C-alpha cells in the first residue's frame, strides 16, 4: 500500500494540483484499501467504477490547469445523502433497494467542485443511534482498540461509518450529519475532527430526514483545516430547502491558523457532571491550560438548563421523526410487506421495515404529539429549547466560544450500553445542546484515554460563528499535537 491514503485532504489537494500523483492513482489506492478493510463494515455501497470515472474526469481537468476546490479528492458519503443512481437507504430495511433519481444539494456541491465518490458509508438506521448498532447492515467496527484488548469497539454514531472510514484511511474525508451529536461523538471516538455548522448553513435537500429542526450536514476529517475545506464546499444557499440561509459562506480555512489570542473562552460549570470519568475531566482542564497559554482569556459561565437538553431532545426529535417517517408506507418506494388490506399492509411494512430503536422513537413521537399530550410534551419541549438558547445567548455576552468535552466517555464495546435506551441516550449529553440551540460545534481529538483510546474536546460557537470554532479548534489541534493513529489489525 502506498502512502497516498494517509494524506490529509489539504495535502492531497496540493499533490493533485502539483501533479505529484493523479486522481486515478489516489482513487485506486483508496479502492484497494476499502476492499482490504471490509471487516470494518464502514462502506455499505462501494462505487469503484464510478470513482475511477470521476477521477479520470478530474485528471482531464487538472491536466488543463482547471478544476474545482476539491478536484480529484476521493470522499466517502454517509448513506443519508441521496446520490443519483446509487442505492441510498439510510441503512434502514424499509428503503429496500431505493435508488434516488436525484442528487442531494450537499453532494452535488461536492461533485461540482470535482470531488470523487468512493461509496456510501454505514450509519445508525435513520441516524437514530449512538453506536452504529441499529444499522440494517450491522455495526461499523472502530479501527481503534483498547490497549491489550482485542474486543471490537463502536465508532460511535450515527455517522460511525464516516468516522471509521476517515480514521482507517478509507477516504480523505467524509460527509456526515448531526441531529444530536452524530458528527461530533463519532469523531471523538475515532480521533478525527467533525463539525456541525449553524442550522441553515447547509441545505437539507436530498438528505433523508430524521428531525428537520435539528438535522444539519457537516464533515468528518483528519484535521481541522480539512473540515474547514470540506464544510466550505458543502454549505450553500438552496431554494429547495426553505430553512437554508441566504448568506455567504465565509473562508473558514484561513481561520484555522489565526490563534486564540484575545478570545474569551467560556467554561460552563454545568458540564462537570456526576459520573464523568476523571480522565475526561483532566483533558478538559488541559484544554483550558492550552488555550490560556495561547493567549485566550478563560471565563466561567453558566448554562443552567443543560440537564434538560436531553429530555427535551427526546421529545422534539421523536416527534419530528414520527411525522417525517410517516412517508414510508411501502406504496411509492421502498420495501412493501403485503397484508390482507391497506391498513395491514402499512402496519406490516412498517413493522418489518423499521428496526427496534426506530419503532421505539416513532411511538414516543406519536405519543407526545397525540391528542391531549401536545401541549404537555412537544410545546413544553420547544419552550425549554428557547430557555436553552437563551442560556447560550446570555453566556455569549461574556465569551466568544465555549469549551467542553465532546463525550462523557471514550468508545465502548458493542452491547455495553444497548440494554438501557436512556443510558445510550446519555452519550449525547454534551453535544445535544448545540443542536437544540442551532449553534455550530466542532470536536477535535485532544488526547488518549488510559486505555489508549482517543478523546475529544468540543468548541461551541455563536450562531453563524463557525470561524470561532475553527480558530479554537485549530489551536487545540496544534497544542495537543494529536498524531496517534489506530494500530492496523484489520
Amino acid at each position: 500500500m502506498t502512502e497516498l491514503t494517509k494524506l490529509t485532504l489539504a495535502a492531497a489537494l496540493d499533490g493533485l494540483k502539483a501533479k505529484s500523483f493523479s486522481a486515478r492513482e489516489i482513487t485506486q489506492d483508496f479502492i484497494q484499501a476499502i476492499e482490504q478493510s471490509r471487516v470494518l463494515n464502514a462502506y455499505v455501497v462501494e462505487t469503484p467504477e464510478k470513482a475511477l470515472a470521476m477521477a479520470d474526469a478530474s485528471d482531464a481537468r487538472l491536466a488543463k490547469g482547471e478544476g474545482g476546490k476539491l478536484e480529484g479528492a476521493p470522499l466517502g458519503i454517509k448513506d443519508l445523502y441521496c446520490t443519483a443512481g446509487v442505492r441510498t437507504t439510510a441503512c434502514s430495511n424499509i428503503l429496500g433497494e431505493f435508488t434516488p433519481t436525484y442528487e442531494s444539494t450537499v453532494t452535488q456541491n461536492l461533485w461540482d467542485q470535482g470531488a470523487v465518490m468512493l461509496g456510501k458509508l454505514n450509519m445508525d438506521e435513520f441516524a437514530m443511534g449512538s453506536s452504529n448498532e441499529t444499522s440494517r447492515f450491522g455495526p461499523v467496527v472502530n479501527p481503534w482498540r483498547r490497549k491489550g484488548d482485542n474486543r471490537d469497539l463502536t465508532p460511535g454514531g450515527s455517522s460511525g461509518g464516516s468516522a471509521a472510514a476517515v480514521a482507517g484511511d478509507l477516504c480523505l474525508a467524509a460527509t456526515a450529519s448531526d441531529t444530536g451529536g452524530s458528527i461530533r461523538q463519532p469523531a471523538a471516538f475515532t480521533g478525527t475532527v467533525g463539525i456541525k455548522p449553524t442550522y441553515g448553513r447547509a441545505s437539507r435537500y436530498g438528505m433523508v430526514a430524521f428531525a428537520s429542526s435539528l438535522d444539519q450536514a457537516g464533515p468528518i476529517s483528519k484535521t481541522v483545516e480539512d473540515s474547514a475545506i470540506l464544510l466550505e464546499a458543502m454549505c450553500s444557499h438552496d431554494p429547495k430547502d426553505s430553512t437554508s440561509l441566504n448568506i455567504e459562506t465565509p473562508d473558514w480555512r484561513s481561520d484555522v491558523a489565526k490563534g486564540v489570542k484575545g478570545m474569551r473562552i467560556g467554561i460552563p460549570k454545568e458540564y462537570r457532571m456526576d459520573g464523568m470519568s476523571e480522565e475526561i475531566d483532566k483533558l478538559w482542564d488541559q484544554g483550558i491550560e492550552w488555550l490560556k497559554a495561547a493567549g485566550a482569556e478563560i471565563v466561567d459561565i453558566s448554562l443552567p438548563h443543560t440537564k434538560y437538553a436531553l429530555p427535551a431532545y427526546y421529545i422534539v426529535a421523536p416527534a419530528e421523526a414520527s411525522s417525517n417517517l410517516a412517508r414510508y408506507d411501502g406504496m411509492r418506494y421502498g420495501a412493501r410487506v403485503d397484508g390482507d388490506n391497506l391498513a395491514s399492509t402499512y402496519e406490516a411494512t412498517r413493522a418489518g421495515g423499521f428496526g427496534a430503536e426506530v419503532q421505539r422513537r416513532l411511538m414516543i413521537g406519536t405519543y407526545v404529539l397525540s391528542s391531549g399530550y401536545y401541549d404537555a410534551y412537544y410545546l413544553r419541549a420547544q419552550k425549554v429549547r428557547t430557555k436553552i438558547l437563551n442560556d447560550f445567548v446570555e453566556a455569549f455576552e461574556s465569551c466568544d466560544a465555549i469549551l467542553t468535552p465532546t463525550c462523557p466517555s471514550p468508545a465502548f464495546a458493542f452491547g455495553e450500553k444497548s440494554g438501557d435506551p436512556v443510558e445510550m441516550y446519555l452519550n449525547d449529553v454534551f453535544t445535544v445542546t448545540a443542536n437544540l440551540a442551532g449553534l455550530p460545534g466542532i470536536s477535535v481529538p485532544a488526547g488518549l484515554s488510559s486505555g489508549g483510546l482517543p478523546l475529544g474536546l468540543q468548541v461551541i460557537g455563536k450562531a453563524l460563528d463557525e470561524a470561532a470554532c475553527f480558530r479554537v479548534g485549530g489551536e487545540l489541534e496544534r497544542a495537543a499535537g494529536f498524531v496517534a493513529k489506530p494500530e492496523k489489525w484489520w
Partner: protein
Amino acid sequence: MSVTKDDVRKVARLSRIAVTEEHVEELTGELNGIMGWIDQLNEVDVDGVEPMTSVVETKLPMREDVVTDGNIQDQVLANAPRSEDGFFVVPKAVE
C-alpha cells in the same frame, strides 16, 4: 403520567406499526422508562416563554406559484414496489 398497555396499542395503531401482544408488554416498560425520565421537564418554569422554531431570525421565503418540474413519470415510478401502465399499484383502498 404513566404509559399503559392501551396507550401502547393506540400509539402503535396511530404509527401504523404492527405490534404483537407480547411486544406490547415490553414496549410499555420501555416507554414508561423513557417518559419517566422525560418528565423532569416539568421542573422547568416555561411561563411566558415562546416556543423555539429557529435559531437564526429568518422569514420563510416565498416563491412564484409556478410549476418547476414535471414530465418525469419514469423517475417518479422508478422505485415503486409495484407499478403498471404508469400507475402505482396499491392494495384496494375503497370498498
